[in-house]
């Protein structure tokens, strides 16, 4: 589908970015799918989502019979902002299996250009999996997602993350599925594991067509300080539930990049559907850059509704135009080669903080952060150029003129700055503190290289001291 738009800077027309994807053979007009979750619980909902513009939907997991409880969702609010994360103890679909299958069939028939993927979870028996896969295929759905991630409830019955946490089970069940699958199969991984690569490799070994991650993270939202009950309260009890939303994004990005940088998974060429806290187009772009080639969204939709798809597409498209990307595959994995380990970082790389005095509003948050918790290299400088301690004004002085006029300025002693970047992170003013890249004072070397060339330096503090002295590395 070619899209054209009136140019902003020229009078002509130019072709705008093509957002369509082909994910393991599943096509959709844009990379945004509803994740398997409450928003994709019924045909009516998915129908409305598609009307709003969603590229696809992974149907809320169908499979074993379940019953749900009340007070399913907890949420983490911060600084007056609602729902930076949500947590849930909702199980897979509690609607009758046949009804779900019928609606899937109807939705797919009505929306041939959209991706309809069905998430499934059944007892760990080959015949159960064979049966559900056959039923899903009969609906005309485009793909299947195996839910090995659900961390609550289902896992107590040997399903969900109970499978995802054991690579052997993961491989075995995927193998059963692949015996009968005629449409692409995506294995959804649980983050509740110490090394995400292991179940991913298991899925690869079993012949899966694609991977997706992350499912929700085990979490407890909190305790009610009035009643001392759990939040949310389920008849006097509460417990761990799956954590999702903006707060989990960095964890998801790490796991995504772990797959992208693993030799086995990367070599398999399996596409990865990324999810975990995607709320805006810029989140989406980061997932693409770190290797996701389709994107799933849940919490942001649960907060604001299906309408957010408009900006997800519009923003991503504008960013791609600006960067000169014409298709999604051009973006996918573009930053993966930047992902590395500490041992490969250049120890001679030098950046120091610099404060733009014109932009500085004198909140002194950088000062206190550096002074109390970092490397004590920001000073308060009085009008006469002298270094002053905080609170050095005369207690009898007052009024806005004196308070503003007598306020010292904050200045980095660059020779002592280790470039930790804490001040940059706490500064409330855009572009006020910059981390300025300085010419390295020493030849480039990584810890890995040092370990190979001068092993004693990396093992013995005395040798390390000598090395520092020789290289002119002063740590105050």
């Amino acid at each position, binding site marked *: 589908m070619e899209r054209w738009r009136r140019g902003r800077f020229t009078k002509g027309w130019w072709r705008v970015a093509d957002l369509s994807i082909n994910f393991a053979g599943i096509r959709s007009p844009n990379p945004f799918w509803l994740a398997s979750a409450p928003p994709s619980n019924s045909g009516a909902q998915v129908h409305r989502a598609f009307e709003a513009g969603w590229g696809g939907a992974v149907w809320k997991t169908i499979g074993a019979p379940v019953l749900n409880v009340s007070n399913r969702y907890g949420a983490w609010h911060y600084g*007056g902002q609602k729902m930076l994360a949500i947590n849930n103890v909702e199980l897979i679909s509690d609607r009758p299996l046949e009804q779900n299958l019928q609606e899937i069939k109807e939705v797919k028939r009505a929306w041939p250009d959209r991706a309809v993927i069905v998430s499934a979870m059944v007892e760990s028996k080959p015949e159960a999996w064979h049966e559900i896969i056959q039923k899903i295929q009969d609906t005309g759905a485009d793909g299947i997602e195996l839910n090995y991630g659900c961390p609550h409830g289902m896992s107590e019955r040997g399903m969900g993350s109970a499978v995802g946490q054991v690579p052997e089970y993961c491989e075995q069940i995927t193998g059963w599925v692949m015996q009968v699958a005629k449409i692409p199969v995506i294995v959804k991984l649980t983050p509740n594991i110490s090394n995400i690569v292991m179940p991913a490799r298991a899925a690869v070994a079993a012949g899966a067509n694609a991977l997706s991650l992350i499912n929700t993270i085990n979490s407890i939202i909190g305790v009610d300080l009035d009643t001392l009950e759990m939040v949310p309260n389920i008849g006097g009890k509460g417990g761990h539930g799956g954590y999702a939303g903006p707060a989990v994004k960095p964890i998801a990005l790490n796991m995504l990049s772990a797959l992208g940088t693993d030799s086995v998974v990367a070599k398999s060429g399996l596409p990865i559907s990324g999810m975990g806290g995607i709320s805006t187009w810029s989140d989406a772009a980061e997932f693409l850059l770190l290797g996701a080639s389709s994107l799933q969204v849940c919490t942001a939709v649960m907060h604001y509704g299906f309408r957010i798809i408009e900006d997800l597409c519009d923003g991503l498209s504008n960013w791609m135009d600006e960067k000169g990307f014409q298709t999604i595959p051009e973006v996918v994995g573009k930053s993966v080669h930047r992902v590395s380990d500490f041992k490969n970082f250049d120890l001679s790389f030098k950046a120091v903080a610099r404060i733009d005095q014109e932009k500085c*509003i004198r*909140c002194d948050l950088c000062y*206190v952060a550096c002074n109390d918790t970092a490397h004590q290299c920001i000073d308060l400088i009085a009008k006469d150029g002298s270094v002053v301690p905080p609170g050095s004004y005369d207690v009898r*002085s*007052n009024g*806005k003129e004196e308070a503003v006029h*007598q*306020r010292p300025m904050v200045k980095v002693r660059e020779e002592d700055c280790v470039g930790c970047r804490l001040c940059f992170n706490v500064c*409330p003013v855009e572009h006020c503190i910059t981390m300025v890249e300085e010419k390295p004072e020493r030849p480039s070397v990584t810890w890995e290289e040092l370990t190979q060339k001068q092993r004693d330096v990396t093992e013995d503090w005395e040798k390390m001291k000598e090395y520092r002295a020789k290289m002119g590395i002063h740590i105050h």
Partner: protein
Amino acid sequence: MNENVAWSAEREALKEALPPLTPHEALVEATRCLMCYDAPCTHACPTHIDIPKFIKKIYTGNLKGSARTILESNLLGATCARVCPVQELCEGACVLGSEHKPIAIGRLQRFAMDYVYGKGVNIFPKAAPTGKKVAVVGGGPAGLSCAGELAKRGHEVTLFEKRNFAGGLSTFGIIGLREPVVIALTEVEMIERLGVRVETHREIGKDLALTDLQSKFDAVFLGLGLGATPNLGIAGEEQVLDGLEYIEKSKMEGHALKVGKNVVVIGAGNTAIDCATIAKRLGGQHVTMIYRRTANEMTAYPHEYEFIKKEGVRFEFLSQPIRVLAKNGVTEGVECVRMSLGQKDASGRPSPVPVEGSHFVIPADQVVKAIGQEKTSLASRLSLQLERGYIAVDEKLQTSIPGVYAGGDCIRARGSASTVMAVQDGKMAARAIHERLVARG
């Protein structure tokens, strides 16, 4: 707020203007605070309340702790939250002020104070008695602050107030829409709960002698305030109402206050603005403020000037009243002469000079004067050393008589008089008195 003090004397039109913040509004506003380190708002506050700290506590839901943070620096936090010229002080210094909206510090402070007074929470425990006695003369902000601070330290404090209520200008002299009477009296009650004994209808120089106080108490604090509004010295003076009495009546017997149709307010300070507001809100059709200089020289705060213009009050700048016209005791108008600005006078402001033959009359059936207060004559009657007519004090707010301290408007020889400065004086004097009493053992 405090249900023990029922107060219905104030008229609806003069009820507190700003609504309290809702808990959500307070949370959102508190969240906006950057929590500056060594913050300029704290520097700008004359009592140096740790503002980021009390705001952070609103944010965390620790309202009692927030109120304590405020009260540790300023016992009259509820009054100051309402009457402080925050635009010139804390909010004026807020780092968000230059490009954004400064944090609504005053309203957040009020939120925390309303919480503890609304719930009747006592912040400070009674201190162990020291056996020392202090007399505080004058129940205005300086006296209340000093008395409370001393009581917190375990001294036995008696506060002598000449009127029927303590609170001073907070109770009687600040328009109700900025500070209702109940707020001032709630604070007086809090000071009493700290252990201060308040004796009303006791006036120094009349039924109290300073020498008596000196012999019966270990120290004395004088928070005498200022004297009466000076005479205009013009014909028809007897027709002119006093501005402070006008405000007082609106607060204490609001329904008895008769407001004219055409009201002239003489003066352009904050009290004059309160008088004009009362006149306008209680039925005055044409309210005119007359001032012999211009808007640039007026002593009202800029935000007060902006406020009164929106109230629909008219200004006659460069106008000097020379006569109040009346027939059979009924006021008919104010005869004025136009002024022009000449050389700068001692105050650094250009002195107004009458323009020949420029007489004009502003029709008025009510004339109110609010041209500042005289320095208290008590100071010289008590044989205290003076500075420019005010009571002279040293760094520790001690007067020329050892053991006798003073603070508030009666010592304000420099700087502008304000409630918050008076609170700070009371606090500093209390510290000095405490040191003196402890040192003596």
